[in-house]
């Protein structure tokens, strides 16, 4: 217990909130709060600050942790987080990087409007931010789904792996993306089955796998003909989940699994090669 006598009243009340004052001081401060409105108002202000700070600090835990850092800790030296920093999922970072491009695109469209017409330029300006939001939103939904479904022991999937041909037909027609179920036994994953999800208002196929240790992984994809087509694999971490996303053949894909798993990129590459 701390001796707070002689300190400013806000310091004493703050220590009282934390239970860091002795019995005699606690009694004294409680008596003060009962009779002094100013002291009570100060006390309420301190408590309000505590609540507000709690909420704000909770948000920090949702920031992505550099994937390479997780790998380095798990595997030891050999990977340099400084050269492999992953910040792709931070909404703020995306906002910073993408909006200038959107703005630049908007300016270009307006300039083109001299010959092609202002209306066309304006229409494209409206469309671009919507695509940015869509690209950001579906991964958020996938992460949320994975947290819920991966804990479902009896109902992990909607259609079991034994109906693989049916899954391919059903999801290809539902999502609009032809595919083959990747066999990832070489990566230690067994195909468990599939689900149809809705992410960011679009149908999404989810192929679910389980590792020998019982960890759940999923490959999710949706039709996306408007996004940039690239063979790059973008890695990110959202709390307990690791995500590796890529674009191919008019579709967006993402592998989602435990963030501490060190082979996410390898699994993603194997899946991308066969899906």
């Amino acid at each position: 217990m701390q001796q707070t006598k002689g300190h400013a009243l806000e310091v004493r009340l703050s220590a009282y909130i934390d239970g860091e004052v002795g019995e005699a001081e606690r009694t004294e401060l409680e008596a003060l709060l009962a009779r002094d409105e100013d002291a009570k108002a100060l006390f309420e202000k301190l408590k309000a600050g505590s609540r507000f700070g709690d909420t704000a600090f909770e948000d920090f835990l949702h920031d992505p942790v550099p994937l390479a850092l997780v790998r380095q800790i798990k595997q030891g030296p050999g990977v340099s987080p400084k050269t492999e920093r992953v910040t792709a999922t931070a909404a703020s970072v995306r906002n910073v990087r993408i909006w200038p491009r959107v703005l630049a695109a908007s300016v270009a469209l307006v300039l083109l409007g001299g010959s092609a017409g202002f209306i066309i330029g304006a229409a494209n300006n409206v469309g671009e931010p919507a695509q940015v939001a869509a690209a950001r939103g579906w991964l958020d939904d996938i992460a949320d789904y994975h947290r819920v479904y991966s804990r479902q022991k009896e109902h992990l999937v909607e259609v079991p792996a034994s109906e693989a041909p049916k899954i391919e037909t059903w999801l290809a027609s539902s999502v609009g993306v032809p595919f083959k179920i990747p066999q990832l036994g070489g990566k230690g994953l067994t195909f468990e089955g599939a689900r149809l999800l809705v992410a960011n208002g679009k149908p999404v196929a989810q192929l679910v796998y389980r590792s020998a240790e019982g960890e759940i992984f999923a490959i999710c994809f949706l039709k996306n003909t408007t996004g940039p087509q690239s063979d790059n694999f973008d890695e990110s971490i959202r709390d307990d989940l690791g995500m590796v996303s890529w674009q191919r053949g008019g579709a967006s894909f993402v592998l989602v699994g435990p963030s501490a798993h060190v082979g996410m990129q390898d699994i993603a590459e194997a899946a991308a090669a066969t899906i």
Partner: protein
Amino acid sequence: MRPAAETKDFRRDLVSLLPKLRRFAMTLTRNANDADDLVQEACERAITRSHLWNGEGRLESWIYAMTRNLWVDEIRKRKVRAGSGTVDALGQDELSIAPSAEKAVYANQLQKMILSMPEGLASVFLLVNVEGHSYRETADILGIPIGTVMSRLSTARLRLAALISENTERRA
């Protein structure tokens, strides 16, 4: 030599601590890049010194103190590099706003507001109010007297209370 399985467990514990460790580092550095570098360095040091961890108390307290020491060293090096000579970072009582805090950009407005608080306030608030460390533990982690913990904590709470109306105005 520490057994391999034990080292693996330590690394696993360290990974599970990363979000919290990064949050603590953010309160020290007040920008994400410095925080990530600091966390990396702290983890490397923790792994090489894991044989010194006796398993008693909270692992995060041990690593937090290590992280804070590394940051104090880094600040000292930066000041020397900047030509301002050596400084006793531990003895700095003056609270100041780091320029980097103003440059940092975060999606979450609340985070920005938290990180814009004067130096030293956010760390104390996080350790005591959010993570439930005692005043003694907090003082040990941050290397400051308990009296400083107490005064910074009450100042932080009042600052945060003032930010509530600021936050409400921004959202309106």
